[in-house]
């Protein structure tokens, strides 16, 4: 990570195309925090790869000036995993929505944590499917009325924080797009964390989720940093993960003090260095040896 650092500003990360999110959409705050975090970290735009799936939130790479991929709905993490393994010199950030990451993409999310690939995963969690205009999402509250649950959502709310903890994720945090400075801090720490890092961000969909509004969140969220929470305490983190109601914690839930080595640092095939920097093909000598195995 961050082998070279340059002096960079927010404008270096602003794409020419302005975001086309609805005015007031929470995703603006998320993007803004990311501009600041990347400027702070000093990675140059061409050394950063932002990968997303499909959704309002997943449009983010188009508004961020770095290499970007707008992949398939739910498949940003596998795409980014392949990308990171191929060029682990890059800073790889994955951005997307709750539907993208916790719905269709949930399997990849859990396995990516298990595999500890060095990716920062930012989920713009608006508790709905924004781009498809407001259906129930895995993080919609039980009982919530949406276009597809007119009698109320019957399913239990998916708990990304608890799942992350249960899956061995070494950096587990939650932010709120109404608090971009706080977000920025979570981002920079997450990107610096050598392994998989999750930041679930409450990012209100002002158009289709009238329930989980800015107001709703503002009334409830409190910062773990302001409480006596110890982010190295797994059990405390699990307790925080289960807290949902009048008070909802944001901030750093958990960070592993001695994190497992990240996948690229361990993969036997990557021991010579960055994959894309290696010569293609096989030496004459190796070739002979390999053919020999069949004789």
């Amino acid at each position: 990570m961050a082998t070279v650092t340059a002096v960079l500003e927010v404008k270096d990360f602003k794409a020419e195309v302005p975001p086309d999110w609805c005015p007031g959409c929470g995703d603006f705050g998320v993007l803004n925090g990311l501009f600041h975090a990347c400027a702070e970290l000093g990675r140059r735009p061409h050394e950063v790869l932002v990968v997303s799936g499909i959704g309002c939130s997943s449009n983010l790479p188009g508004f961020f000036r770095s290499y970007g991929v707008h992949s398939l709905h739910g498949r940003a993490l596998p795409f980014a995993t392949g990308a990171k393994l191929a060029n682990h010199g890059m800073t790889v950030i994955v951005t997307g929505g709750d539907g993208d990451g916790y719905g269709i993409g949930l399997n990849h999310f859990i396995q990516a944590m298990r595999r500890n690939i060095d990716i920062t995963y930012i989920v713009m969690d608006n508790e709905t499917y924004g781009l498809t205009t407001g259906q129930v999402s895995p993080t919609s509250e039980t009982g919530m009325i949406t276009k597809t649950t007119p009698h109320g959502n019957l399913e239990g709310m998916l708990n990304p924080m608890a799942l992350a903890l249960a899956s061995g994720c070494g950096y587990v945090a939650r932010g709120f797009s109404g608090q971009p400075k706080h977000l920025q801090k979570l981002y920079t720490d997450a990107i610096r964390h050598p392994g998989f890092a999750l930041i679930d961000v409450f990012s209100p969909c002002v158009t289709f989720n009238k329930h989980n509004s800015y107001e709703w969140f503002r009334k409830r969220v409190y910062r773990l940093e302001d409480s006596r929470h110890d982010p190295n305490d797994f059990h405390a983190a699990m307790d925080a993960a289960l807290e949902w109601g009048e008070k909802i914690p944001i901030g750093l839930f958990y960070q592993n003090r001695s994190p497992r080595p990240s996948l690229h640092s361990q993969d036997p095939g990557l021991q010579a260095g960055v994959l894309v920097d290696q010569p293609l093909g096989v030496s004459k000598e190796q070739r002979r040896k390999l053919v020999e195995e069949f004789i």
Partner: protein
Amino acid sequence: MKEPDVIVGIGGAAGDGVASAGNTLALSVARQGQAVYAYNSYQSVIRGGHSWLRLRISAEKPVNHGDQVDALIALNQDTLDRHLQELVPGGLALYNSAKMQPGHEPPVGVQLCPLPVPDLTPAYAKLPVMQNTVAVGAVIRLMGLDFTGLESVLGSTFAKKPQVVKVNVEAAKAGYDYAAAHFLPLSAQLRPTTQQWALVTGNELFAMGAAFAGCKFYCAYPMSPATHILEWFAGHGKQLGICVRQVEDEISVINMTIGASHMGARGMCATSGGGLALMTEAIGLSGMLETPVVVINVQRAGPSTGVPTKTEQGDLNQAFGASQGDFPRIIIAPLSMPDCFTTPALAFNVADRYQCPVIILSDLLLSEGNETVDPALLDVEFPIDRGELITAAPEDGNGRQAGDEPYLRYKDTASGISPRAVPGVPGHIHVAASDEHDEDGVLISDVYTDTVRRKKMVDKRTRKMATVFEHLPAPKLEGSIDAEVTLVGWGSTWGVISEAVERLNREGISTSHLQIKVLVPFHVTEVSAILGRSRRVIVVENNQSGQFARHLRAETGIKAHGHIRKYDGEPFEPKHIVAGVKKILEGGTEVVDVLSTEAGWQTEHPTGTEGDWAGRLVPAAAVIT
């Protein structure tokens, strides 16, 4: 074939050591310059059932496993009962006379070769598998080869256990000598040569060929009959600097592979039909991002989970229709095991050059079959053509050279090919999007949707393929254009059709052969020129509906006069095709559905229904065990 050949059949239950006996035999004869083609018909079970391995051995390279048995090695009574009647005159049956004996008279001209295994090897009491070693020794003698090959193979197989080597060599030698003393040699005697052979499978060659061609990322989810490609890579990734990963599912597999490829690493993955189904969405992603990817699909008998250990050519429709919308793709079906070695290199080159997905269609027969290949053919440095790939910028700044045009990832060039910069290169920042996008990558699916840009981008992608035939060899007719019959096949049936053609010509039915390797895009001009002049076109394929025949008609309008198809799980044998052609020539039939009914294919099903097997000569009840 001009050289004599011997087909050895080894049969037994799972756990009896059929595969390892076959392997020992194949390696041994290969060390005496014999070429081998082997096909193992096995079942998905760890113990029991019936495995039936045939090895065709000759100084001249066989290209299929043949359709008869000259020498039977029965590892259990069941095998003896099933296959004795299949032996041809001059053939012989080897078996451990302490454990089994024939349930019926052998066919006329067939020699029974009982081996008193316990008497021949003192190790038998503890190691019943010694019967296999004795039999292998014996059959080598009866084919006319000397003992050196077998001895050296046993030596290297058990290199770390000298005592085991000793016991095995003694048993093998005992079988060899006993055969010399007690049995008549086979009429076909093999001619030792000095040719070196490598004994390989199609899957191993796919893997090694890809590695030689610069594959740097291989990702898979286990699925028969493609799993061995993963296993080869897993075993060699460290030494070759290849990142090899087994991941949670095929969706993840292909998306990771495309992700790696997007960064500039040559990425490949492999699966079978059900896995390919899960990959289809991302095949479209590769098409839209114009990020190359190479996917091997090893076909097995479908539909759905189907028959995982059986062969078929049933996934052409799926490969052709993989993913929604229109985008360029390339589909290649290697014709032989050696072709499995070179196809990944070809696939990588065209994938890079045309920035599109390439699907390689193999099948169980090709991928899991064993064949000897001249090692010189494997010691190859493939030319690597990465197409218009930008991996470094002139200046390592935060931009490009002053005065440069801004970089357009999807530039609307005359060729349709847009130079591809990989992430990490300064001055070429862009977003690659699965949504429709403009030349600079900015979405035109959203607020900026418009008709003109949309059409321009579709046209750009389509136009890319204009020059692709420069890199994809056209099929050539083998034999005379005036032949009475032209057999058309695709992929793995090349070897078996070739031999059928030889036989038909020998029998006076003049036959030519056209085998298709590049399925998409299709060499319409060349194929139409050939088949347009053919007198009678017969398509041979290993599926029920004639997927290739339909493809041929869709592309060229040519409707075949006849079809020979097989979809019972077992591959074609030359005799099936010869008989099929004759049947079609007799008239009245357009489609011949071949069915293998030999007793070897029948199972004792506890609740199963009846059917027209050829049947065994002696009922199982009468068997002496």
